[in-house]
Structure formats: C-alpha cells, structure tokens
C-alpha cells in the first residue's frame, strides 16, 4: 500500500479516525487454518479487548475483514461479497502467508495466489501460522495506521474499482446459476 501520501484530513476526520482506531470490530473470514490462532488472541492470555477490538457477527457491523489463510476461488466470491457489504471506512487484514503468495498452495489450481489483486489489503500478518503475539503486533500496526489516516485501502478500492473488478472476474470466470444450491 501507499504509505507516504500527505495527510490531508480535516479535524473531524482525524477525530473520526481516532474513534475508528480504538474500536476495531472484526468480521473473521475463517475458511483457512489460521482461525485457530484467534481464540487465544481473544481470551485471557492476550485479551484483544484491551485495544477495543472484538469479533462481530456480520460484515455490516464490522470495520475489519480478517481473512485467515488461503482462499479458494469459490470462497473468493464470498469474501468479495462480504467486503462489499461492509460500511466504509473498512479495512482488510490478511493473515498468514497463503494470502500473500498462496503459501503451500502456491501451485493449486483452486486457490488464489495473491489476495491483493482482488481486494485492497491494508495489512498483512505474515507467518504460517502467525502466533498471537504477531497478530497483536500486527493489529497495533493497524491501529497506528488508522490513526495516521494511512489505512486507505477502501478508498483505493473505490478509485481503482474497474481494475479490481477485472481481476476478480478473470479469476472467477462465469457463474451459471442452476438453482438455489447449484451454480
């Protein structure tokens, strides 16, 4: 992401970003194996609530879409759908190496390699698995970025919507709907 842009927010936006930074509600998209690292992050050992973070039930309520691990092309559609249901400002945190380059599935025909091509990722937490410490560290980074107004993935997505859409369509191909349960 572009990190070195000038800070041209007004006061209200700065205050808003302060609130956003200190109250991060996440929608966990846990199709990959990374989900196992989240319960310890949440519970008494690491207690993410200290930072005002917490899981939420639906993308409408959430600020952060947390994608834990590999995405098959089939689930990618769902992730995009979820992301588009979220309200701005919204952020994406990609979790684990699979989201960076495909990880151990780098040569699979069924998974995507780089999430960045399809959705604007604000922050990667690398590792296979990233341990809770790393996760917490990563979120600290995200909080800082939001405070500074540098987590602008959602704006980027709006601006380069055609590019993202093209990549998404290329990857997904045509979907033929047969009935409610078969596509």
């Amino acid at each position, binding site marked *: 992401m572009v990190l070195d842009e000038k800070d041209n927010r007004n006061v209200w936006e700065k205050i808003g970003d302060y609130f956003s930074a200190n109250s991060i509600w996440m929608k966990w998209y846990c199709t990959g194996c990374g989900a196992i690292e989240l319960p310890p992050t949440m519970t008494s050992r690491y207690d993410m609530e200290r930072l005002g973070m917490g899981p939420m039930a639906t993308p409408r309520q959430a600020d952060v879409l947390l994608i834990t691990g590999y995405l098959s092309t089939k689930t990618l559609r769902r992730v995009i759908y979820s992301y588009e249901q979220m*309200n701005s400002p919204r952020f994406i945190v990609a979790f684990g190496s699979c989201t960076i380059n495909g990880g151990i599935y780098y040569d699979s025909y069924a998974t995507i390699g780089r999430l960045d091509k399809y959705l604007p990722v604000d922050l990667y937490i690398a590792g296979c698995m990233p341990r809770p410490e790393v996760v917490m560290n990563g979120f600290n980074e995200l909080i800082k970025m939001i405070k500074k107004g540098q987590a602008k993935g959602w704006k980027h997505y709006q601006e380069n919507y055609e590019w993202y859409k093209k990549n998404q369509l290329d990857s997904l191909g045509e979907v033929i709907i047969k009935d409610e349960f078969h596509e």
Partner: protein
Amino acid sequence: MNVMSFVYGFLVLLGVFVFQTTLTGLNRKVTARLQKRYGARWYQQFLDIFKALRKDSTSHGWVFDFGVIMALGGIMATVIFIPVAGFEAFPGLDNIFVISYLLAVGMLGMAMSAAGSGNPWASIGVARALTNMLAYDVPLMIVIFTLIFAFDSSSLSEIAALQQGMGILGWNAFRMPLGGIVAVIALLGMLGKKPFDSFIAPTEIASGPMVEYGGKHLGFMFILHEFMTFIEVSIILSLFFGGGATIWEYMLKYAVLYTFMNIISGVMPRFKIDQAVKYFYRVPLAMAIVQGLVVIFTGLGVTLWF
C-alpha cells in the same frame, strides 16, 4: 408542561447517557475480570458508539430508517418519564403502565426496522425477543400488580418514596421477598442478559435483530440499548429497592444492582428460547402468584414485617 420541562428532559437524557455508558464500560471490565482478562478501557463504550455513528451506513428502505428513529425516540421519551431520586422532568407521568408500554414503542420500532431489513435472521431474532418478553413480563407484571394493589399507586416515584426512611428492610425486595426474587430474575430477562439472551445469539443467528445494522444505525442501537438498560434497571430499582433519596444514593444503588446483574450473567450459560419460556412460567410465575395471593389476602408485606 413548560419549556423548562423539555430542557430538563434533555438534560436527563444527556446525563443518563453519560452515566449508563460509563457504567456499561466499567461493567465490561467487571466481566473481563470474571474471565481473568484485563478488559476494555472504561470509556470503550463511548468509543464504540461514536465510531459507529461516524461510519457510513447502509439502508434497506425507509422503514429501516424510520424504525430506528421511532425506537430511539420512544425509548428517549420513556427515559424522560423515569423518576430519578424523586426528580421528574414531567411530574406525575411516571405511571408504571405508561412506562412499560411506552417502552414497547421503542421495541416495536426496533423490531419493525429489523424485520424491514429483509434479513430472515433479524425476523428470527425479533420473534425470539418477543417470545422472551412474553416470558419475563407476565411474572413481573403480576408482581407489579401486587405492588399497585398494596400501595394504591401506580406511580414509580410514589412507590419508591414509600420504601424510603425505613432502612434496608423497608425495601419491597425484603418486604415481599418472593416478588423481589421474581423481579431480579425478570430483570435479567429484560436486560437480555444470559441466560436469556438467545435472541441476540451472535453465531447462531448472526446477532438477530442487529444483523443488518451498521454505521449510524448501529450507533443508534447502542445508544438505545444504554437507555433501555437504564429504564429497566430503574424500574426494578424504584419498585423493589427503594429508589434513592438523593441522586448519589440512586446512582450508587443503581450501579450495584446493575453490576450484580452483570456478574450473574457472566457465569451463566444460555437458555434456548422455549426453555426460557418454560422456566419463567414455572418458577417465577408461581412465585409471583404466591406473592400476590399473600399480599392480597393477608396483607403481609404491605407494612413492615416487624
């Protein structure tokens, strides 16, 4: 009814919001401590609400917006009627029936808006919430009915005043112990605390009525929740724990009662909705009826025990 009443009313709203939101934040910490966590900052609840208000939002049509406004409007009107330590912005309107039914306006608005989102989970959540309401309200209303019969008044402030000045044993919770227990259990249900929180089960039905809310709608829901909590705890506080002679006493008692509710809830599992109904219609209902019969036929509890 003059302009000052409205100013007072507005101030009450503001004060209640600050007080209750702070208390909620503190209670998040209490819950965290129960779970051996450090917990959120005491002002976290404010951050959450303001952040939600700050965000963009999605709307599913006019009823989705209208319901939210109606809900918050109704609830705020109810808050204005709640007597706090004898103070009322609109004197004389603290009738228990008015309050409990005006509260229903807010609930109806919320239910309407939720169902208006078009999400079936919201409808399921509302269905559960209404069922839950039917479960806890009947025992509670019977106890309240008993109080009205006993004290010949349906005014919250009057009933609260009647309990003051006799020490702790003058509270209705001690004069009518069964009724007091029912009230506390019903309060858990009213607050939607565990074990009676199946209507907002986050993973089962995606937080039920809240499923489609985001941004300012969600912020409204949070504010509404704070107000609603205040109303519910205040009703029970005034009716069974003597209200408060001064504002400080009131706030202290309130904080204790609310925290107590939270602590109970913190160690509870969750009832399925039909289990909740069965439970309320078995134990608390029987207790409420026994209490009612005792008061009506023996007069025991109308005056002090000793």
